[in-house]
């Protein structure tokens, strides 16, 4: 049985090679998800690299990525499969004097099946990473659809029978926890909570993502961001936002993140005006805007 990663350390180093700096818990859990062939449910605040983890796993193992973006109102026809009824109509019209029995058997074949992400991922022969993004955005009924896929890696199509995975995909589900997922889904998954990283790791992430950044600015930036996360803000700055901030500093050619520079570019990380005011007050920046 082909394994995704050989060991937690292997997972860590291979993810690192693709530019995703995983902490010990993330690497271990990713390894376990591959070794046990269980779906991985990743939860955490926005912008901490949940989706990125799935992409990194795909890159690290050379697998194809199949993505199902969830939204309110997502249904079976767009998640699993659909019959191409227009083509079926044409087939019926073209059959002419053929009997109903032959036509009936004919129009429910592979040729008329439109596969959607979940079925695609299961039917692929190559290694596949299946990313089910923002699963908390869907309605509760869709979770029911997922159950068969997540536990047995198979899809039952009434007309065709059961399609089983020839090769189990590496499934990653991401959630922002706006809604509690059902116990049934959670039971089938491994769980990983991603949180804001510690200062050291965040500095590594920022410097690896933004090459031109000097060590000094990176350290200052990470310090300010860590301080901001401690404040009671409506939206704490995410990793993605600190990377954006680093890029901004490069673009503005700011070589020293002093109070003036922080004040001028704070809008990159804080998106609420009340958060902005609070940060200015707490960081003791000059209040003038």
């Amino acid at each position, binding site marked *: 049985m082909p394994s995704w990663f050989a060991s937690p350390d292997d997972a860590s180093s291979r993810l690192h090679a693709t530019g995703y700096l995983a902490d010990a818990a993330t690497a*271990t859990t990713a390894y376990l998800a591959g070794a046990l062939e269980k779906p991985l449910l990743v939860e955490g605040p926005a912008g901490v690299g949940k989706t990125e983890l799935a992409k990194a796993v795909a890159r690290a193992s050379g697998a194809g990525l199949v993505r199902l973006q969830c939204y309110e109102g997502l249904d079976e026809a767009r998640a699993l499969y659909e019959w191409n009824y227009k083509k079926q109509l044409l087939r019926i019209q073209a059959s002419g004097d053929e009997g109903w029995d032959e036509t009936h058997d004919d129009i429910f074949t592979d040729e008329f099946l439109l596969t959607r992400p979940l079925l695609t991922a299961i039917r692929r022969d190559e290694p596949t990473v299946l990313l089910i993004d923002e699963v908390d955005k869907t309605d509760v009924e869709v979770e029911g659809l997922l159950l068969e896929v997540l536990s047995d890696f198979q899809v039952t199509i009434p007309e065709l029978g059961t399609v089983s995975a020839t090769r189990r995909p590496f499934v990653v589900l991401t959630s922002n926890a706006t809604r509690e997922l059902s116990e049934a889904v959670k039971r089938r*998954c491994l769980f990983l909570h991603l949180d804001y990283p510690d200062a050291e790791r965040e500095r590594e992430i920022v410097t690896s993502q933004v090459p031109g950044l000097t060590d000094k600015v990176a350290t200052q930036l990470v310090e300010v961001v860590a301080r901001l996360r401690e404040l009671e803000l409506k939206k704490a700055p995410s990793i993605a936002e600190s990377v954006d901030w680093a890029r901004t500093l490069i673009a503005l050619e700011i070589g020293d993140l002093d109070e003036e520079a922080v004040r001028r570019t704070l809008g990159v990380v804080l998106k609420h005006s009340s958060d902005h005011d609070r940060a200015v007050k707490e960081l003791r920046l000059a209040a003038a805007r």
Partner: protein
Amino acid sequence: MTLLDTHIGLVEALRSAGLSVSLAEGLDAIAALERIGWHDREVVRTAYAATLVKKQSQRVTFDAIFDLYYPRLVGEGVAGDPEGSGEEGEPAGAVRDNAAALTTFRGELAAALEAGDDQRVQDLAVEAMARFGAMPGRGPGLSSWSAYTALQRVTPQQLVDQLVAGLLGRGAHPDDAERLAGRRVGEFTRLVEADARRRLAEEKGPEHVADVVVRPTIDRLDFTSARRADLEEMRREIYPLARRLAVRLTKEQHARRRGALDFRRTVRASLATGGVPLETHHRPRRPHRTELVVLCDVSGSVANFAQFTLLLVYALRDQFHKVRAFTFVDQVHEVSHHFTPGGDVVEVMENLAASTAHAARWGRTNYGRAFTTFAEQHADALGPRTSLLVLGDARSNYSDLAVDTLRGLVGEARHAWWLNPEHTRHWGTGDSAARAYGEVVPMVECRNLTQLGEFVHDIL
């Protein structure tokens, strides 16, 4: 104890702490442990967490229980001094614990805290328990460990000032230094407490300690029994809670969106299908938004509870048509103007706290007088479209209850509720007038964030 026993014990303890760990998940954990080595305790912890804990709010509970069943070290570990690892029950504590030792220890601790050396602080926490936390028993097996005793001797809180001075010397800003010092000393205290639990678990068996150490998760913690750190954590929970509620409400409103049949549109659409109305069209429903009047007791006993409810109402402000808030102890004071849209939470709470002074003239809770003054001064606040929400424990210091005035107020409003942060079994005991008021207005028990969230969801 075999490894399997330990595993079963851990799963049992997690279940009794309220985590729903299924048999399948337990098997998953074992399968996961087979794949990884036992060389690193943190890896084992991660494997357990990934397979057994499916909710982040339960992680704290899990960590506490994991530490009991898979302790960081046994006894003094390899780092402990060899003389110290004597038989239990032997009065070694008295020998090791003397003034000189204490002074040296506190010096070392201060240095480690100032340098921020986590590993050293951890070692010192273990040492603190070994030296100062032992409670020799009268017989073998009766000796015990007390984090309280150890902390009383070491008094890390007194090191804060010293630590602040040290950090200032390193060029830190005064506020930052204080914050940092407070956090590091808090961390040390936590480590000492954890080590005490570890030692107790080692001597008495983890299953005896598990029941005691596990605190309810933050969303099930009573408002009235919360510590200061808990309160801060709870405040951080308010916004996510409000967001979750808002999402849930929008979804439910969408589900109920179809209103009465729109005849014109249905007929018009039927023209395309030769006059057969294949699809019906409906008018969207008009969203119903309530006006809310919150009347809350801000006296000491229930201040926390009032704060949280106000905060949640404030966070959900756009779900209401209009919100008016009044605080009282014995006088009624309007605080609606503090709830500015897009305002900063911390500032709002500070303003509210500052305005509490206006709500008290005599400083003793008096519900009767509060209702009477409210009816006199702010009767215009209530109308046929408003909902009245009273927050308080209904402990009125045996004063006149003015039940009839409240009945009048309730009659004017469209709906009325009373949220009581006390457990139902305490209602009507002592000076609580919960039963008397409960006859006039439906009284709801609301002790923690979960109950609060449920209630707010139901009234919207």
